[in-house]
């Protein structure tokens, strides 16, 4: 009988597998941090002459140099901004007889807030001395107001959130056919609550 006196070697064959596993793990998990932020479109330079807008259709928000928030002409807390903006946008002040009546609005049709969401303009003025953090916070709250209303309508019409629809639309994994449908729906919702956020100077005495 032949005897094997050698000590058997430890099998290192699976070491490669383990290392590959780690490699793939790192490749997959190191997502390069994508930047996020609030998208805005600036108004073009060649401005058309100022449009006369009914005062009730303007919601004035301003920040002064001490970072204090003014809504219309009252000093208010930032926490109230979103609900105030929603109440303004969703007011639907036009009576049913009017052609611009907003059939989907759930506001209390007050005579001091907007006629309908298409006409409603939020005017945001910020003092040069206000801090950017505060400025972004106001922008964020106003976006939140629009998103909440848009989500509500998207839930009602399509059974999903507007924000989620937008995300799916920009997702590379979504199929082209689905995107066409999504785009149509997104435009429909955007049209119901268009984001009329102005940072231009508005003149009170027009």
């Amino acid at each position, binding site marked *: 009988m032949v005897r094997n006196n050698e000590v058997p070697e430890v099998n*290192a*064959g699976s*070491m*490669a597998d*383990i*290392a*590959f596993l*780690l*490699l793939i793990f*790192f*490749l997959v998990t*190191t997502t*390069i*941090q*994508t*930047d*996020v*932020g*609030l*998208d*805005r*479109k*600036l*108004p*073009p*330079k060649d401005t058309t002459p100022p449009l006369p807008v009914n005062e009730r259709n303007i919601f004035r928000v301003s*920040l002064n140099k001490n*970072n204090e928030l003014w809504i219309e002409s009252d000093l208010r807390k*930032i*926490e109230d901004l979103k609900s105030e903006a929603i109440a303004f946008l969703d007011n639907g002040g036009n009576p049913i007889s009017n052609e611009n009546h907003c059939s989907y609005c759930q506001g209390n049709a007050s005579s001091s807030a907007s006629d309908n969401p298409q006409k409603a303009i939020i005017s945001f003025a*910020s*003092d*040069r*001395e*206000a*801090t*950017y*953090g*505060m*400025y*972004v*916070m106001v*922008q*964020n*709250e106003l*976006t*939140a107001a629009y*998103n909440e209303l848009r989500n509500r309508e998207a839930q009602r019409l399509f059974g999903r959130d507007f*924000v989620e629809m*937008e*995300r799916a639309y*920009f997702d590379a994994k979504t199929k082209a056919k689905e995107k066409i449908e999504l785009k149509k729906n997104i435009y429909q919702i955007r049209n119901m609550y268009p984001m009329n956020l102005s940072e231009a100077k508005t003149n009170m005495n027009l």
Partner: protein
Amino acid sequence: MRNFRNNKSKLPAISTASLPDIVFMLLFFFMTVTTIKDNTLLVDNNLPNATEVKKLEKKDRIIEIFVGKPAPELASVLGSEPKIQLDDRLASVTEVSTYVLSELAKKPESIRNYVTVSLKVDKEVKVGVVSDIKEELRKVNLLKVNYTTYEGDAFRNMQ
């Protein structure tokens, strides 16, 4: 021939003992190379928080502008007034438009319409600087901006 057969009946297997080493080398390479920042910051860049954020589009469609106080180690030279950083240097507001146009010219023509300017502004900066930059961008008709933020509770910006 017979002699050879008797000596060794099998061909020696190729040693795979060094395979793990190679793979580990790759692993370490990936672990170290995947850095996230691509330009060194000369200014403080503590972005504000926001919740209603959208993802920025592809990296090649972005022009970045940083604004903030000079970094602590540079503060003795540059002072503590907010500065604008374009690429790797500090610049004044008037240079923004030329920089943006030159960056735009570097991009392929097909994507020029989709370029967004990402404003990475420290939350301590005054809004005046930002509106000056926006005014410059309007002059060169680059209207898509993104106030780049961190994702988080916006009410923390108040402190």
